[in-house]
Every structure is written in C-alpha cells, then in structure tokens.
C-alpha cells in the first residue's frame, strides 16, 4: 500500500500564487477526481507535483510513502512512481515511441545494467494488445503529427509500460471526442487496481461517466472547497460551479 500525501501545498508561478494551501491524500487503489472551473489551479497542482521547473513550491509538502519528493528533480520523482499524463504532450521528432519507452525503462535500471530487449518488446506488445493498440503505432515518432486521440493513446501506453504508483491525469479529456475519451477511460479502467492511485483532473463530469471515481473534490481558487463521493460530480453537473461559489459566499 502506497500513499501520495499533499500537505498544505502552496504553488506560485513567478510572483503569483496559484495553489493556496491544498491538502489531499491518495492511497493505492483509489481514484480521486478534482473538478473545478478554469483557472483554479488544477493543472498547476499536477505540474508542481511532477516537478516542472516553472512552478515554485512556496509552502507545504508532497510525500510519496512518507518521503518528501520536493527536493527531487522531475526525473527522480518519475522514477519514484509519479506519472503525469499531459494535457498537451510534447512532440519528440525522430524518436519512436518504442525507443522512447525503452530509454525510459533503461533509465530505471542501475548503472551497468542493460535492458533485456527481447523481454522489453514482449512486454510492450502485450500491453499494446491489452490496450488494443496497433503494432505499427510504436514505430511512429512520439506525438509527432498525432491527432488528439492518438496523443492520449500514447500517454496511456506509456503509463501502462511504466507502471507508476500514482498517475496524475491532467485534463485528459479536454478537446476529445467520445471515441478518444473511451480510449482514455478504457486504459485507466484496465490499469485500475490495488497498485495504482489516480488523480483525475477534469473540468467536465462526462469523463466520470466512464471512469467512476471513489472520491470527488471541488477546487476553487487554489484550494479544495468541497469533497464527497461520485454523487458530488453529478450534483455539480446539475447545479453548475456557481452553486459552489454561492455556498462559499454563504459559508
């Protein structure tokens, strides 16, 4: 059983504070959804946890299994088991998905250890079969010229191969048609289990029709202002974010 603890986290971009004291604990096997209107700091939260150099953590802590990861470089955090599924994944011209994932696997081995190429490809193909991905897909350059759906498929495949302890999924559903949404949902549902904790960041409720969360949190102005189970998402969908706003004002 692993845990990802976010304790009273403050994050700034430049002089501007975006996340203003957010606390949340995710355990293996749990799926948490964070919902909220645009500009409340949802994406900032996920990038800060992953160690993006533009995001300064000005207070609080993030711990994986009780150990703070804030002093670690982005790649150390990744190897510690934190995976970020990007809203806008970068293109890497000339580097095939297969080679990219191979390099990522190799980076997890100790010095002098060589990745067993045969075993690697065997594993890659079994994951692709599981996710119903065509074999030709991994010979393409990472995200180069990909459609929105292909980019998501690429992220999901990487997640399946790297087997993180925790996956932060940043607005994974934005701009996706229903077919692409299903790819993401099927992927996450396939991987869902006692060894994976998920933080789903989304603006819309519709993703949660496909990936049913254990917990739903509403984020507002850099904080979590309301938490509940999946029914909260439906309530939010019905009443809109203004409902939360009004509640906040009356509180």
């Amino acid at each position, binding site marked *: 059983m692993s845990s990802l603890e976010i304790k009273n986290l403050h994050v700034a971009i430049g002089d501007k504070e975006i996340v203003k004291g957010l606390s949340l604990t995710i355990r293996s096997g749990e799926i948490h959804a964070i919902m909220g209107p645009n500009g409340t700091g949802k994406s900032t939260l996920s990038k800060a946890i992953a160690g993006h150099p533009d995001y300064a953590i000005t207070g609080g802590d993030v711990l994986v299994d009780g150990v703070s990861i804030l002093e670690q470089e982005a790649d150390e955090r990744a190897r510690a088991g934190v995976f970020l599924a990007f809203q806008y994944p970068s293109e890497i011209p*000339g580097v095939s998905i297969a080679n990219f994932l191979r390099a*990522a696997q190799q980076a997890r081995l100790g010095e002098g250890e060589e990745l067993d190429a045969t075993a690697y490809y065997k594993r890659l193909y079994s994951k692709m079969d599981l996710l119903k991905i065509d074999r030709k897909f991994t010979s393409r350059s990472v995200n180069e010229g990909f459609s929105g759906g292909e980019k998501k498929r690429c992220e999901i495949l990487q997640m399946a191969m790297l087997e993180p302890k925790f996956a932060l999924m940043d607005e994974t559903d934005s701009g996706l048609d229903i077919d692409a949404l299903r790819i993401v949902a099927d992927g996450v549902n396939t991987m869902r289990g006692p060894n994976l904790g998920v933080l789903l960041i989304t603006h819309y409720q519709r993703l949660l029709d496909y990936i049913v969360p254990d917990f739903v949190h509403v984020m507002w102005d850099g904080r979590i202002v309301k938490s509940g189970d999946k029914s909260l998402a439906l309530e939010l969908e019905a009443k809109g974010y203004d409902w939360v706003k009004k509640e906040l004002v009356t509180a």
Partner: protein
Amino acid sequence: MKPPTEIETMSAADTAAENPVVGIDQTAGDFSYKVDYAFDAGTGLSEDTVRYISSVKKEASWLLEFRLNALKKFLAMPLPTHWATKDLENIDFSKIRYYLSQGQKPKRTWDEVPDDIKKTFERLGIPEQERKFLAGVEAQFDSEAAYSNIKDLVSKQGVIFVNSTEGLREHPELFKKFFGKVIPTGDNKFSALNSAVFSGGSFIYVPKGVKVAQPLQAYFRINAENFGQFERTLIIADEGSEVVYMEGCTAPKFSTSTLHSAVVELVALKGAKIQYITVQNWANNVFNLVTKRGVAHEDAEIKWIDCNIGSRLTMKYPGVVLKGERARGEVLSIALANDGQHQDTGAKMIHAANNTTSNIIAKSISVGQGRSTYRGVVHIPKHLKGCKNNTECDALLINSNSRTDTYPAITVRGDRNATQHEASVSKVNEEMIFYMQQRGLTEGQAMSLAVNGFINDLARQFPMEYSVELKRLIDLEMEGSVG
C-alpha cells in the same frame, strides 16, 4: 540548463593557452601510451623537414619535387581569415611535429600488431561488431600504418588497399595518374600543407566491375603532443565498380593544440559508386582542417557521409565535381559543436555536365557556447540543362547562447535547371525536456535523446555499427553538457 561559461570573456591568447573544454567529460579519451619514435622530424616546418620525410620514406625524386613545390605554395598562401574564423591564427606552425614513425613496416596480421595498439583499440571501445572488421582495417597509428591487412577476399577481387606510402612505392603509375588531380596542391593553404608533409592515409583501387561487398575501414588517432597528422587518401573506383570506405577518428586529450589536416581525393569512373563515411570525435584542442573532394564521371555516384563531433575547430566541406552526364553527388553531414568548439562544415557541388543531380542534407547541433556554421556551394552554369540540386540545412540549438550561421551560396544559371533550398533552426525546448524527464530520463539522457531524434533520419542511412557508435558519442557529449 548550464549557465554560460567563462569562455566568452577569455581572450584568444587565453583560449590558446588553456584547453577550451568546459564541462565535458573527455576522460574516455584521456590516455596515451609510451611510443618509441624511431623516426622523428622534430618540430617546425622547413625545406629540411620535407626532405627528411621524403628520404625516410625513400621516395622517388618527382615526389620530393611535388612536396617542395607544395611547401612553397603553403608558405606563400595567406590564412583564409577573410572568410574563416580568426582562431586559425592561433595555430603555431613552428611548434608542430610534421613527421613521426614507429619505424615499423605495415603489419599483415592481427597477431603481429603490438599489444599497445591493441590496447588502444580496446580503450576506444570499438564495438565487437566492428572488431570483426578489423581484419580488413587500415589503421594509422601516428603517421605510419601500424596495421594493414588486405583481406583475402578483397585482394582476390584485385582490389588494392594499402597505405599511401606503399601505394606510391608499389603502384606509382596508377597513383600518379590521379594523385593531386582532384584537389590541386594550391587548392587552399591546408591542402598545400598536406601535399608538402603528408604521410599515411589509404590508397585504394577497385578494378572494373568489382563490387566490394565489405566496407573498407580505417581508424586514425593522434598520439603525440603537438603532432599534426597529415594523411593522404586516394580512392579510385574503376568503371562500374562499387566501394564503401569508413573512417572513425578518436584522439587522446592534450594540453596544447594539435593539427589534423588531411586530403582525401575520390575518383569514380563511369558508372562507379563510392561512399565515404566519417565518424570523428577529435579531442577538443584539435584543429581539424580537411579537404575532401571527389570527381564523378558519367553515371557515377559519390556520397559523403560526414559526422563531426569534437575538435576545437573543424573546417570541412566535402565536395563532388559532377563531371559526366547523369552523375550524382550527395553529402549527408552531421555536426555537433559543444562548449568551446566550432564546427564550420558544409558541402560543395560543382555541376559540370547535363542531367547531373546533387543532394545536400546538413544537420548541426550547437550546445552551450558551441558554434556551428554551414557553408555550401552549389554551382550550375548556364549552358547546362536538366541539373537538379536539393539543399537542406537544419540547425538545433541547445541553449540560448549557441550560435549558428548558414552561408549557402547557390548559383544556378539558365532556366533548364532546378534547385530547392530549405533551412530551419529549432531549439530543444524546456517543455520537451520536462516531458522526457517526467518519464524518468535524466536531463542529460533527455537531451541526448532529443539530439539523436533530430539526426535520426540521417543516422538511419549509416551502417548499423556506425550509427550505434554515433549514438554513443552523442550520449557522451550530451551527458557531459548539462549541469
């Protein structure tokens, strides 16, 4: 990302006195073995030096005359600093050792190769796959070939593959017919220098219709401080023949500058094909000033694949003179300039017959203070028709301090010829590096992968073992280049 280094503020004199390498792990090349130099021309260049070299090599009188004439030209010609970098002025020609020999006859078998040299190959980390080729290697250890073995297969086909000294001695008529014809002595100051003091290099003749199945290989390294290496290579592919030649260079690290100035001439007769592949990784104090050119006759094809990594300054513009109808010329070039390095590379395509085609694809990578320059010449005169040229130059910058320049000179006259030119400059952006780091790669590994991706479409055209070696060299360079 690495902060700017002090290089910028250093004067030219400072740079010359100190090794200009900053933040690069070159320990892999940081070794040198004691060598008993039986023949040594001392330092400095004069008529006596040239006479000494010629007498040690027991050369014919015409060759001594050729050398002395070249020396005169070299001394008379100015440095090309009106267009090239002023850094050339830091070469002290009086401190260079122009000839050095172990006094060994070229070896015939692997067993006869001295252990020291075997150890050097070992330290260079030549992959197993390449070692099997070593039986056919012409490797220059300092100025003489320490190991030279023509594989049975190759000699049975009538192919001559020897070092240039042996070639001159044993095949003087053939040698003389083409020697200095593609690149005249006075082509430039450094081709003149090479013509005066050359030793080592390969001489290859492939008879009519013979297709050499196995690439011929040579490894060069510089092993004495202040020692300039001046190999001379001449490859003649007779009508309808095919040959692939590969050279790999790596050199130990020294505290003072050292000069490498080679001349390579290729002759592809009617319908012949020559492919010349270079993957070099010179130490960061080496001036690498090389003249490479080929003449392609009717229906012939010459392809230069040129990878320049390392060195303090490389100036190299492989060229093809498209002399016969339907001749094809190609230059695929990759240059990586790290901190303190300047890669001034490019290509020359001289169209001299109808329906000739040329293709230039140049990719450069500049890291930190590294500087890349592309210089290209494409010449298609007015009276020709049906000539085509394609030129693509792509530059990748790995931090804002890098500098890259492109000087394409494309002269296409007349309306019956076609040319297209594309150039791009891109940066490895922070988002891409973060994305890769988020998958567990270190910053260095991420950079290295980005660079390998950038050159991937070119590297794929290399023989497998060379693309593996290139990748290894890039990994080494990139891992040392991040803070």
